[in-house]
């Protein structure tokens, strides 16, 4: 199934605007992002700590709704999901 992962700000600079990936059944949101983030060491380290957990400041959205880090580790992705990964916002 096809999942889109969007990156913004510093994360976009490492991974590009978005990556469309083929995910297998029961893959969690957290695992999918970790898998994709492996493509760039520096990018991975910006998103995950040394134990592979999301760094506290990382914001995750699933189809436009914020997802807590804990929830992301348990929620399986589903066909057509749009995941967004970004650092704290700084608009205004």
């Amino acid at each position, binding site marked *: 199934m096809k999942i889109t992962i969007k990156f913004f700000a510093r994360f976009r600079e490492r991974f590009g605007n978005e990556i469309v990936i083929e995910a297998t059944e029961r893959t969690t949101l957290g695992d999918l992002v970790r898998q994709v983030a492996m493509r760039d060491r520096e990018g991975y380290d910006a998103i995950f700590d040394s134990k592979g957990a999301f760094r506290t*400041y990382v914001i995750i*959205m699933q189809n436009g709704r914020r997802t807590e880090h804990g929830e992301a580790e348990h929620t399986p992705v589903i066909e057509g999901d749009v995941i*967004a990964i*970004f*650092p*704290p*916002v*700084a*608009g*205004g």
Partner: protein
Amino acid sequence: MISIQREDVDIGRLIHHAKQRGVGALVVFDGIVRDDDILELELEAYQDIAQKELEQIAHDARERFHLLSVDIIHRIGRLSVGENILIIIVSAGHRKEAYEGSRFILESIKSKVPIWKKELCRNGDRWVPGKRPSDTG
């Protein structure tokens, strides 16, 4: 008008349109690129989500502060020193609602809306640190 766009707007024209029946006070906030030793500011948005969140913030502010109109224009792209970044225009029956509604909208944008800023400087670029959900003030 709630918009995330590259183009600037004519504030005078927006003020004119905000003057509808019942309006006694109008407050404009204009956030401007400050000359903190930068060449330019580059803004990026998660556009469709940011648009929806601005609309939600405008809706909440209208209800909570009895605003008669709300306009929010957040610019993206490269902006030079002195250019408008964010324009918020609210109108209300009375001054208190207008000031408080305007401030509420601004603080909500700063804490919630997925927009990022990068300062382009002579000696390198720098992402403006964002507000973490746990930060206060």
